[in-house]
């Protein structure tokens, strides 16, 4: 099992460009999350999903969009990239929403210049 796979691992964007960070899981987990991690900081929740067709905002959703058309995929879309979106993005999954164990991908490092 690959677990949680994120692509790309690294990306440089110009201000105003758009892109999609991909997240795929083969764990058949219902719950999926997108976090961002700024240098020296903890993780901030951007969006999450409790199942296919259901998404909800987290703590810092502005400037991002998500979709969840399948159980496996949870892409994060950045529209009109800004320098403030320079960060490392982590996708995570959980089998249930009750226990705390999230399974994280390796991260996607995004730089907006």
């Amino acid at each position, binding site marked *: 099992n690959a677990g949680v796979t994120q692509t790309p691992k690294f990306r440089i964007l110009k201000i105003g460009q758009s892109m999609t960070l991909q997240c795929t899981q083969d764990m058949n987990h219902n719950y999926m999350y997108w976090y961002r991690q700024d240098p020296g900081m903890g993780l901030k929740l951007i969006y999450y999903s409790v199942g296919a067709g259901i998404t909800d905002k987290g*703590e810092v959703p502005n400037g991002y969009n998500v979709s969840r058309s399948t159980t496996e995929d949870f892409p994060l879309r950045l529209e009109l990239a800004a320098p403030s979106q320079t960060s490392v993005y982590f996708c995570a999954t959980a089998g249930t929403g009750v226990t*705390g164990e999230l399974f994280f991908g*390796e991260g996607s490092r995004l730089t907006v210049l």
Partner: protein
Amino acid sequence: GESVGLHLPTLSVQEGDNSIINCAYSNSASDYFIWYKQESGKGPQFIIDIRSNMDKRQGQRVTVLLNKTVKHLSLQIAATQPGDSAVYFCAERGHGDYKLSFGAGTTVTVRA
């Protein structure tokens, strides 16, 4: 603001000594707490968790203590090894919630 935070951003510990990493939280409705370890360039990995109806839980070389009176959580690592060098995060989940809130993290460096 954040509901979970750590007391110290860095901790240096001699190999073989015990490490104690502290975390304070402010949300009294939180009923589930988790510690994660993040090695350089990787995603966080689950270490141990504890429910609010417990005050202590032990794993392999790790112990989590929960003091609900003062809203304090700690992670103890026994016989710290070089492989324990990482950033450690505490996280909490509210009752019935599906989301985790993370603290800022403590960077642990193990001296040989």
